């Protein structure tokens, strides 16, 4: 379903994302005496995902997890290596990014559907399902900028889950929402396991162990561990020297 072969993603590190015009010209005229440093967000990454897998991706902040999701979403083309994706990918909602905040939740659902290539009819069909799942009530017609982070996460999750795509990308949103919503999210995740292919990035080790049938641990852009979730989580926690909290269904504390 997804084949990643020696993937590398490189970024140029500039102090200012966009240099001022003058320094831009100066750098040019000095003929790259200060060549910008580059860093590899991902390097030599290889793994395979079969249809129906739920892959848990763990690692410290900045280890390349979100970058990987973006590669799979098609946002970053590989600088090295190859990525083959045999299916359609959902939108990546990282903690609510990707919403047009001036528009209402409803409009964002619509826009998202168009962006991932759904037909208008299909979007209409899914609209009610998504609205109901997100439980935003009247807020669905308010601009997203009025939403709390939890509400955005719920909407993002609702859209990602119901967008008809073979591959679902979930970034850090399992921890959002109140207990009632988490139970719903849990149920939804359990429902689609096996049916669809899920890439789940989370800091919540319980969620990873519960849903994933494969886990990959990223450390500074390379794979530090891969395989059975319980094992990989243990490796990761050992390396981070964090004592694993006792498994407690009620305690989905946000890391």
């Amino acid at each position, binding site marked *: 379903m997804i084949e990643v072969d020696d993937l590398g993603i490189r970024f140029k590190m500039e102090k200012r994302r*966009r240099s001022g015009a003058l320094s831009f010209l100066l750098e040019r005229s000095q003929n790259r005496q200060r060549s910008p440093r580059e860093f590899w967000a991902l390097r030599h990454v290889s793994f395979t995902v079969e249809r129906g897998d739920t892959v848990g991706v763990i690692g410290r902040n900045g280890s390349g997890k979100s970058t990987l999701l*973006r590669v799979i*979403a098609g*946002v*970053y083309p590989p600088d090295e290596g190859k990525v083959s994706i045999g299916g359609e990918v959902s939108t990546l909602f990282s903690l609510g990014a990707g*919403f047009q905040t001036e*528009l209402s939740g409803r409009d964002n659902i619509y826009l998202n559907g168009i962006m991932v290539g759904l037909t208008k009819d299909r979007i209409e069909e899914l609209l009610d399902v998504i609205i109901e799942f997100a439980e935003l009530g009247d807020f669905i017609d308010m*601009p997203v900028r009025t939403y709390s982070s939890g509400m955005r996460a719920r909407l993002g999750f609702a859209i990602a889950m119901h967008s008809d795509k073979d591959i679902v990308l979930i970034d850090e949103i399992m921890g959002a929402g109140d207990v009632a919503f988490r139970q719903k999210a849990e149920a939804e995740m359990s429902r689609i396991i096996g049916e669809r292919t899920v890439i789940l990035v989370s800091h919540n080790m319980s969620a990873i162990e519960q849903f994933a049938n494969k886990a990959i641990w990223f450390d500074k852009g390379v794979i530090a561990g891969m395989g059975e979730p319980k094992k990989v989580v243990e490796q990761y926690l050992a390396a981070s020297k964090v004592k694993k909290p006792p498994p407690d269904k009620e305690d989905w504390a946000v890391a």
Partner: protein
Amino acid sequence: MIEQLKNIWERRELLYYMVRFQMKAEKKNKVLGFVWSFLDPLLLMLTYIVLVSYIFGRGGPQFPVLLFTALISWRWFTNSLRRSVNSVTSKVGLIQSVRFPLVILPLSGIIIGFFDWLFGFAILVPMLFIFKASFTVNVLWLPVLLLIQIIGTIGACLIAAVWGTYLSDLSNIIQFAIRICFYLTPIIWAVEERIPERLIHLYMLLNPFAGLLESYKNVLIRGVPPSEYAIVGVALSCVVFVVGLWYFSRDEHKLVKAI
């Protein structure tokens, strides 16, 4: 490059919705909403009428309608350019969440600019009657002129979108450059009045907008065919279009990382 064009055609529905949602978002907070699309050019025109007709005492009887014709076309170009400069950087969240042809971002700015032109045109039509413009078959040249303008605008905006992503100064530079070009172009003044006769030919060759704007005035108000100097506009538009399209296609994948 042909790929790009095909791509855009395939995702035309996306372009449509981007435009629609962008326009919706922009007028959401404004009390007057879309009325501003009419008011903006109207108020601008009134400002210049006061300045030129009353304060300077120039312009002639048809000044308002000549001014307005040039103004709405000029505004279409400059507003498109301004929007394009920030088109990519303003949509970081969206670009990093889902894959889509980025060219849609500056393009939607141009299309919104065109709708503003249409609103302006809706006001222009009654003005043409009021100021007794000559209505001849030459009016049929209008779509051709619009086509020339849109081709050139697309090229310029694609280049602006790329540069604007790397250089935040570009919006300041563009503001300034537009202002200068505005005064150097026959919008609030007439070519015959201000340019010495022996220099007119040179001027018209050097300023691509001059030929185009004179042509708009020719076909809508004076009832004559477009200015020969519009050819300069045609040639330049085509070149800029090809260059812009090539440049944007080449750099598109770098843009996602630059934001």
